[in-house]
Each structure stands twice: as structure tokens, then as C-alpha cells.
């Protein structure tokens, strides 16, 4: 892409005429004047000579910068200890006023004020925190400092410059010797600290003014090769931070031979130099990272750096090598590395704006190739990243159509004009040529715009998307094929399965992805896909129940997304589900998958064959007798749903075995038929509901009795639980304990009601005692006991009294009778006496 053109500001004033510096004589008056009126001399300092020198001597400065900075660091540290310092440097060192150069806080917490030497290159060390990479601003700052320096010196600084320029070359050799001596003397720890500090300084400097300090990058890369591993790690990470901030938003294109030969302005030269340095250092850094990735000590750091770089700058040069490194670590066995790489790739897919889609397709293709190479023995996360792909489904053609229309029209018009008016006047020619020019200009503008535009246009986008899709689906189909092969030859594979847990680990994310992107697949391939899925669903060896169920679920989902084409009845999958119900085992298989299968295949608004629906109803009812509450509930909800929808199946609730005329062709129910259509379920009866209404779980018993009464009361109250998945979740084991207690209380109440009244007092006492067990108050207990005994006493008293009463009554009666008898006797005696007289 194009380079950033340096913004032009007002050029500094023209250079003064070239006067050899020796001839310049500065009088004392002038000195005083200058000292008094500082500002007046300001303009003097905006000379360009220094920048020119800087440019010219840049190469020579390179080492100088590094070494000076190093020395500055050492110096500050060893101020106390070593006096055998480079006094020569100290002369050059000029105290800069604190206003101009902000202090730096080292790792020790001390403030160091920057010292400025005469060399202009040092100006780059000014940390003003503005972070501008505009050369001219740097210039201004440079000159300010220089102005101060000049004013301090005030005399013949140019001469001094020349002297120093000559002198410094000679100084380098002794400086190096001095440095070597210093290094030997410092202890290892101090070296460590010094290196850390150096890293920090360089990093900050680069971030502030990258163009000026591009050499420091090389320094930092040197540090990467340090023997100390911590330093290596730190330097890698700090380089990462630096690169993240200074990488430009465009891809750098190195100038060609021709361009190099051309004469260009200083700014362009500077820019080129900066870019080429950046690129070369970046390359070196990347190579270092890639080599370090193999080293187990640095693996994590290296991978993290690579991923962060790819995330931050996917458009920059060398992104392909970064991408290949990340993709190869996607399926590593180390969890952290894998997670980091997968996250990077996912963010790459989601932020397509950064790289305009090229990285997406490259990544997808690389992953597909990797799957092919490893024959699908990878960690499922590697395919999971495909789920974050986004496809733009409405790629609209904007003005392209119009353009095409316009052009031929115009040409036709032109030809017609030419044919009709061959000998036209000049006017027409002029008009035509003007029109031609106008269109040419428009075309040129459009071409330029296209070249400059970063987002790919419609045709490219479409092509990229179709390539991505084809790679994704190629991967999925390969996984499906491999799974099928492994199931067909599973008898041999069983002994020596390659991965620890799963012979086909990629199957489940593959199925997920198919479910998500199925509406984008071409209609031709749907038939093949259905075939594969059918075969996989029927693979009794090699695939566990949950996987086969998932195949069925995905098949239905694919079909549903293609419903507008044709409403296809997936017979084969229903047969599979029917048989899978028999093979389900609650501990081993996942009930949620089963509940989802119920929902998608049976409960969703599908028109079902009567025989088939009845067959499922009957088998589900039998199924719910055999398993725990959760599965039973899911099955019963499905049964209820099916019975509500298919009115004809309700004769299953009637008590006539044999079905009568509604039973269809098959006269008797075959419980072990493999095909639901031939099971003859319409001729059976749902006696299981009767058993289920006595289930220990209250919800299940209520729903069972609700279903049984369905034919009697058509307007049923709608149960809270609407889908088999929800039912399964609600009734899974976590919630069961709570429900049981409720049930106990309910049953005790029932018992209480059913006893006769006479003994009710006693039984109520029993329940009271039962309840009082939970109440931990002894006073209450004793009070209740007292009451109880009092009542008992009273009852006993009453009985005794009643008995006595009865006895006295009897006695009275006897007496009465005796009295009457005596009366009769006396009467008889009187009578006989009278008769005897």
C-alpha cells in the first residue's frame, strides 16, 4: 500500500550563505547581546545544517547512540563507585534544563535527568511522551535543545562540532575498551538489572519516536540472544509491545532497484530507511521467535508473542509465516498453547476488517490441510474454531451492473453516431472526444480508488467467501468419511486406537459446524451429506449412542434449514431413533442428547404418519417405565405432545386391544418390530400409564394420569413443562431430594384422613408427635404430653362413670322387676285367701 507521505509544514528559512566557520568572529559585544536577549537568537538555531549532518553521519552515529546510551546508564549507576569514568564524555555531556528533557524513572525508583551530548542523534533520547513520528516536530525539539546548548557554550559550536566529529572517531576505540572493563567489574546481578533497565529505556524511546530510534530495535534484538533465559523472555515481550505500537497500518513494500536509483527528497529517504530497518528487524525477531518455539523453555512465551503479533497486525508483512506457526500449534497437546492459538484464530475470524479476509481463507485452508495430513486425529478444539466464522449472506452487487450496462450502451451509441454521421462537423467530434476524456478520467479515478481502497471489492469478496466455504466443508466431509471408515474397520482398530479416548475426536465439532452452516451448502451435496449421516446413524459398532443420536439431530436440522426447497420425510432416521430407544442406557449415555432428539424429531411441528406416531407413543411409554424420573418425564412429555397433535392415536387410550377398524393393516402389536410403520401400535393399549400414575415422583404420576384422561376432557390445563429437554433438566437428580420430602408429607396427610373418627384423636396425636420431632422444643413436648395424659384420664373416668351408670341402671331395673313381682305375689296370695274363704 502507499506510504504515508510526511506532512509538509512551512519550510524553515533558507540557509545563510556558506561562510567557513573559521572566519566567523564573535565579538564580546555580540556575546553579551546574545546572552541578554535569548529569544533573538532563536531563529539562528533553526539552521538545517545540523539535520543534514545528522543525516549524513547517521551511519556513524548508529554505534554512537547505542554506546552513549549504554554508557549513560552505566554512568548513572556507578556514580558512587567508580570515579574512573569517561571524563571525556562528561565534558560532552551538557546539562539540559529540566524543562526540555523530562526525567526518567528507573527501576530503582530514582529519577535520572537526561544528559545531552553534542551529537544531534542524542536528541532522540528526549522523552516528551508525545509519541509523534513526524520528523519535523522532532526537528523543532532538537533545535530547541541545541539552542540551549549553544547558548551555554555560545562560542564556535560549529568548530567544536567539527573537532568532535573528528575526535569522536578516535574516541570510540578507547570507549570500547572502557566498556569492556566496566562489564567485567560489574557483578552478574547488576548486569541483569542494567539490562532490564536498558530494555525499558529502549522500549520507551522507540514508542515515543520510532523513526529516530529505529536502531535501538537492533539493540533489543541483540538482547534476545542473551544467555540468561529471563532476559530473553523479557526482551521478547518488550519487543512485542514495541512492535505492537509501531507497526504501521499498511504493508511495507521495499523499494525496487529503479526506485532506489531515483533521486528522492530527504524525507522520502528517511522514510525508506526507517521502513527497511523496521522490516529487517521484524524479520529477525520473527525468526528468533520461530526458533525459540521449539525450545521447551521458551515455548509459552514464544507462542504468546506470535499470537499477539498476529492478532495485532494481521495485515503486515510476514503474516503468512505467523499464521502457519499458529495453525501448527492449534492442535498441540499443551492446553495453554492450544487455548492461546485457538483464541487468536477465533479473533482473526471475527475481526475480518483488519486484514480484509485474506487471512481467513489462508487460515481455513491451512487447517484443512492439517486435518488431511494428520488424518483427522486432532484435538476437537482445532475444528471448533470454525464455529466463529461469519459469512456475509447478502453479498449485493452494487453498481457493477450499472457500469457494465453503461459501457456497452455508450459504445453502441458511439458506433451508431459514427455510422450515422460520418461526415459530421468538428463540433460533434469535440463533444465526443470530450465525452471520451471524461469517461477515461472516470475510469482512471475508479482504478486509482480501487488500488487505494483496502477493502476488497465485491467479486473478490465473493470468491474468498466461496473458497473459505469450500475448504470448511471439505474438512467436514473428510471427518465424516474418516469416521465411517473407522467404524467399518473398527474391529481391527479397537485394539490400537490412536488417540487416548476417541477414535474419531473430530466428529462432534464437525456435526456442530454442519448444523450451523448447513444452509450454505449446495443442494447437490445435501444428498451425499444425508447419505453419510444415515450410514453413521446406523453404525452399530464404533459409534456410541450419543453420537448416533447427534447424527440424527443434525440431519433433521439440516433438513429444516432447507425446508423451502422441499419437505422431505426422513424415514431412515426415524427407524434409527426407534431402535436407539431400545439401546439407551442411563448411566452411559447422555440424557440431554436424547431429550434434544425427542424435541427435534417428534415434538416440532411435523406431520407424522399415524402408524409411526402411534409406534413411538407406545415405545416411549414402555421406555418411561424402565428408567429414572428424568428420562421418564422427557418421554412422557413427548407422548403427551404426540397424542395432542395426532387425534387418531388416541384410540391407544381406549381399552380395546385389537384396535378395531382404526388399527390399520397390521392387526397385532409387534413390540420388537424394527420399523415403526410396521409395528401395529394402533392396535395396542397404553396400559403403562396406569402403572405410571402410581409412580413415586408426584410430577410423573400427575402427568401420567393427565394423559390417561385426555380423551375424556379435551380442554386440558397446560402443564408448566413444555419441552422434553426442560423436563429432563428439571427432574434430573439434583432436584429430586426436595420433591421426595413433599411427597412424604402428602402421604401422611392422606393416611390421617382415611382413618375413622373415633381413633382420630389418637392418630392425630401420632402425627403431632411426628411433627413435634422436627420441632425441637421440650416444653412444647411436655405440654403436649400433659394434655395427652389428661385427655386419657378423662376418657378413662368417663368410661368408668359410664360403666357405673350402666350397672346402677341395671340394678334399678332388677329392683323394679322384683317390686312388681312381689306385688303380683301379694295379690295372688290375697286372691287365694279370698278364694279359700
Amino acid at each position, binding site marked *: 500500500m502507499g506510504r504515508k507521505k510526511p506532512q509538509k509544514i512551512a519550510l524553515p528559512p533558507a540557509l545563510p550563505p556558506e561562510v567557513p566557520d573559521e572566519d566567523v568572529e564573535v565579538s564580546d559585544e555580540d556575546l553579551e547581546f546574545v546572552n541578554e536577549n535569548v529569544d533573538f537568537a532563536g531563529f539562528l538555531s533553526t539552521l538545517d545544517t545540523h539535520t543534514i549532518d545528522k543525516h549524513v553521519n547517521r551511519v556513524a552515529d548508529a554505534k554512537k547512540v547505542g554506546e552513549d546510551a549504554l554508557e549513560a546508564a552505566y554512568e548513572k549507576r556507578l556514580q558512587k563507585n567508580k570515579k574512573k569514568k569517561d571524563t571525556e564524555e562528561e565534558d560532552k555531556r551538557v546539562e539540559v534544563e529540566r524543562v526540555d528533557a523530562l526525567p526518567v524513572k528507573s527501576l530503582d525508583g530514582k529519577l535520572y535527568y537526561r544528559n545531552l551530548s553534542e551529537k544531534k542523534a542524542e536528541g532522540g533520547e528526549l522523552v516528551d511522551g508525545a509519541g509523534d513520528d513526524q520528523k519535523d516536530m522532532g526537528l523543532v525539539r532538537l533545535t530547541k535543545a541545541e539552542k540551549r546548548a549553544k547558548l551555554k557554550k555560545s562560542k564556535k559550536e560549529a568548530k567544536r562540532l567539527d573537532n568532535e566529529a573528528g575526535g569522536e572517531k578516535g574516541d570510540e576505540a578507547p570507549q570500547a575498551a572502557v566498556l569492556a572493563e566496566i562489564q567485567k567489574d560489574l557483578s552478574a546481578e547488576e548486569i541483569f538489572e542494567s539490562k532490564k533497565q536498558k530494555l525499558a529505556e529502549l522500549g520507551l524511546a522507540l514508542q515515543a519516536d520510532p523513526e529516530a530510534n529505529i536502531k535501538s530495535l537492533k539493540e533489543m534484538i541483540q538482547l534476545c540472544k542473551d544467555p540468561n533465559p529471563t532476559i530473553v523472555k523479557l526482551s521478547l515481550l518488550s519487543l512485542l509491545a514495541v512492535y505492537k505500537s509501531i507497526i504501521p497500518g499498511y504493508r511495507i513494500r521495499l523499494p525496487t532497484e529503479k526506485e532506489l536509483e531515483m533521486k528522492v527528497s530527504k524525507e522520502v529517504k528517511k522514510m525508506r530507511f526507517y521502513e527497511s530497518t523496521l522490516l529487517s528487524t521484524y524479520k529477525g525477531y520473527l525468526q528468533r521467535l520461530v526458533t525459540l518455539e521449539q525450545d521447551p523453555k521458551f515455548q509459552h512465551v514464544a507462542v504468546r508473542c506470535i499470537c499477539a503479533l498476529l492478532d495485532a497486525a494481521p495485515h503486515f508483512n510476514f503474516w503468512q509465516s505467523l499464521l502457519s506457526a499458529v495453525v501448527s500449534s492449534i492442535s498441540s497437546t499443551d492446553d495453554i498453547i492450544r487455548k492461546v492459538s485457538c483464541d487468536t484464530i477465533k479473533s482473526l475470524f471475527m475481526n475480518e476488517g483488519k486484514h480484509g479476509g485474506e487471512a481467513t481463507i489462508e487460515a481455513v485452508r491451512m487447517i484443512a490441510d492439517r486435518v488431511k495430513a494428520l488424518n483427522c486425529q486432532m484435538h476437537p478444539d482445532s475444528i471448533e474454531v470454525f464455529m466463529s466464522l461469519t459469512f456475509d449472506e447478502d453479498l449485493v452487487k452494487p453498481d457493477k451492473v450499472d457500469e457494465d450496462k453503461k459501457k456497452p450502451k455508450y459504445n453502441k451509441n458511439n458506433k451508431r453516431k459514427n455510422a450515422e454521421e460520418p461526415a459530421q462537423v468538428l463540433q460533434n467530434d469535440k463533444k465526443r472526444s470530450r465525452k471520451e476524456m471524461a469517461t477515461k478520467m472516470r475510469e482512471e479515478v475508479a482504478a486509482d480508488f480501487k488500488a487505494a481502497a483496502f477493502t476488497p471489492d465485491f467479486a473478490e469478496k465473493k470468491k474468498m467467501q466461496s473458497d473459505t466455504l469450500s475448504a470448511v466443508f471439505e474438512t467436514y466431509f473428510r471427518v465424516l468419511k474418516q469416521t465411517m471408515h473407522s467404524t467399518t474397520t473398527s474391529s481391527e482398530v479397537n485394539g490400537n486406537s490412536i488417540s487416548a479416548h476417541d477414535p474419531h475426536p473430530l466428529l462432534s465439532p464437525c456435526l456442530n459446524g454442519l448444523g450451523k452452516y448447513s444452509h450454505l451448502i449446495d443442494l447437490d451435496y445435501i*444428498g451425499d451429506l444425508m447419505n453419510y449421516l444415515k450410514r453413521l446413524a446406523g453404525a452399530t459398532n464404533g459409534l456410541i449412542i450419543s453420537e448416533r443420536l447427534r447424527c440424527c439431530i443434525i440431519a433433521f436440522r439440516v433438513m429444516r434449514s432447507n425446508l423451502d426447497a*422441499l*419437505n*422431505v420425510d426422513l*424415514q*431412515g432416521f426415524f427407524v434409527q431413533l426407534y431402535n436407539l430407544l431400545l439401546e439407551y442406557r442411563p448411566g452411559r449415555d447422555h440424557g440431554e442428547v436424547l431429550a434434544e432428539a425427542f424435541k427435534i424429531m417428534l415434538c416440532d411441528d411435523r406431520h407424522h*404418519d399415524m402408524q409411526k406416531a402411534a409406534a413411538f407413543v407406545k415405545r416411549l411409554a414402555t421406555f418411561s417405565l424402565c428408567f429414572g424420573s428424568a428420562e421418564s418425564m422427557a418421554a412422557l412429555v413427548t407422548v403427551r405432545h404426540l397424542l395432542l397433535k395426532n387425534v387418531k392415536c388416541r384410540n391407544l387410550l381406549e381399552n380395546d386391544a385389537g384396535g378395531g377398524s382404526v388399527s390399520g*393393516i*397390521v*392387526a397385532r402389536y409387534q413390540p420388537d418390530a424394527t420399523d415403526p410403520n410396521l409395528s401395529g401400535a394402533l392396535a395396542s393399549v397404553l396400559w403403562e400409564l396406569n402403572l405410571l400414575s402410581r409412580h413415586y415422583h408426584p410430577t410423573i404420576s400427575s402427568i401420567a394420569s393427565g394423559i390417561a384422561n385426555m380423551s375424556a376432557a379435551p380442554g386440558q390445563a397446560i402443564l408448566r413443562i413444555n419441552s422434553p429437554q426442560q423436563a429432563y433438566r428439571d427432574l434430573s437428580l439434583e432436584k429430586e431430594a426436595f420433591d421426595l420430602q413433599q411427597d412424604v408429607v402428602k402421604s401422611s396427610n392422606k393416611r390421617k384422613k382415611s382413618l375413622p373418627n373415633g381413633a382420630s384423636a389418637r392418630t392425630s396425636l401420632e402425627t403431632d408427635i411426628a411433627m413435634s420431632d422436627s420441632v425441637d422444643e421440650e416444653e412444647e413436648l411436655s405440654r403436649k404430653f400433659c394434655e395427652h395424659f389428661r385427655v386419657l384420664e378423662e376418657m378413662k373416668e368417663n368410661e368408668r362413670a359410664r360403666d357405673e351408670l350402666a350397672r346402677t341402671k341395671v340394678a334399678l331395673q332388677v329392683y323394679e322387676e322384683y317390686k312388681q313381682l312381689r306385688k303380683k305375689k301379694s295379690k295372688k296370695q290375697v286372691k287365694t285367701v279370698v278364694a279359700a274363704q
Partner: protein
Amino acid sequence: MRPLDEAETTVVFEKLLKFTGNNLKNIVESPAHEGPDPNPGRYCFRLQKNRVHYVSEALVKRATNISRKNLVSMGTCVGRFTHGGKFHLTVQCLGLLAANAKHKVWLKPTSEMSFLYGNHVLKGGLGRITDGIQPGDGVVVFSMSDVPLGFGNAAKSTQDCRKLDPNGIVVHHQSDIGEYLRMEDDL
């Protein structure tokens, strides 16, 4: 009446196979509970006046008591042989086919009448279709409430049906229950 010979049996079974596939054994081997015998017999095919009938053995035994010119039909008539020796299935075998059909097609209510008049099934009238149909397969046509309406030949596979325009023929009509009214004399 006589049982079918080799060639005829092959032809009849082939025709039935197109519709039923694996379920053919259900037709041939299903137990027949008709008749007073406690043990269920089997069903078999018998030829009477170039019509093929599907009868239980118990019934066959009793039908031998009726003379040939008086015997009109027994059991279910599934088809007839033409002069040229070809075998055609008639509408009366619909019940048998519908119970054991592999490939089914459901019609929308609006296009039921059209099919019952003898027209072919168009894609626009298709409610549902079984997966995995190949061209040339036998297909049984149902209404949306699962009443068998007739049968025919598939013109396109299920895959191709997706891409068809709404006036394309999906199933070639062979026989439907409207024939009971239209061709009363022939049956």
C-alpha cells in the same frame, strides 16, 4: 384357478418389490388369521382368469369347491396379466401396498382431486416426500390425513425434486381410488 408358475411369480414379485422393497417378506410371510383353524396359515397367490389374487390358504381350500366359471374373485385381486404377458397392478392392491410401502408421497389437499381424476403429481401439489427415492421407484400416494389415494412411478429422485420448478412431474400416475368410479366395469 392355479398357482403361479416360476416366470409369473418372478414377474409379480418384481412389480411388488418396486413398491415395498424389503417389506416384501411381510406380504409373503404374514400369518393369516382367517378361517376357523386355530393355526394361522399363510397367504399365497393364485391365478384365476389371468387375474392374480392374494388369498389365505384356508380360503383357497374352500374356494376349490366352487367351479371355475362361477368363481369371480377370492381374497384380494392384486393385478392382471395382459394378452402380451405383461403384468399390471390394479387399484385393489392399494391396501396391501400402502401398509408395506417404502416410498411415500403426501399430497396437499388442493391437488388431491387432480390426482384422483388420473393426472400425474406435480411438484406444486407435493406436501411431503420420503427421502431416498430414485427415479423409477414405485411410490404410494397418500393424502395429508394418511388416506392412501393411489400409486405410481417416481419420475425424479428426491434430490432432483428440490430443484424442480412447481409444474414439474414428480410421480407418474398408475392407479388411484377414483378408478372405482371411473372404471367400474373393468375391475
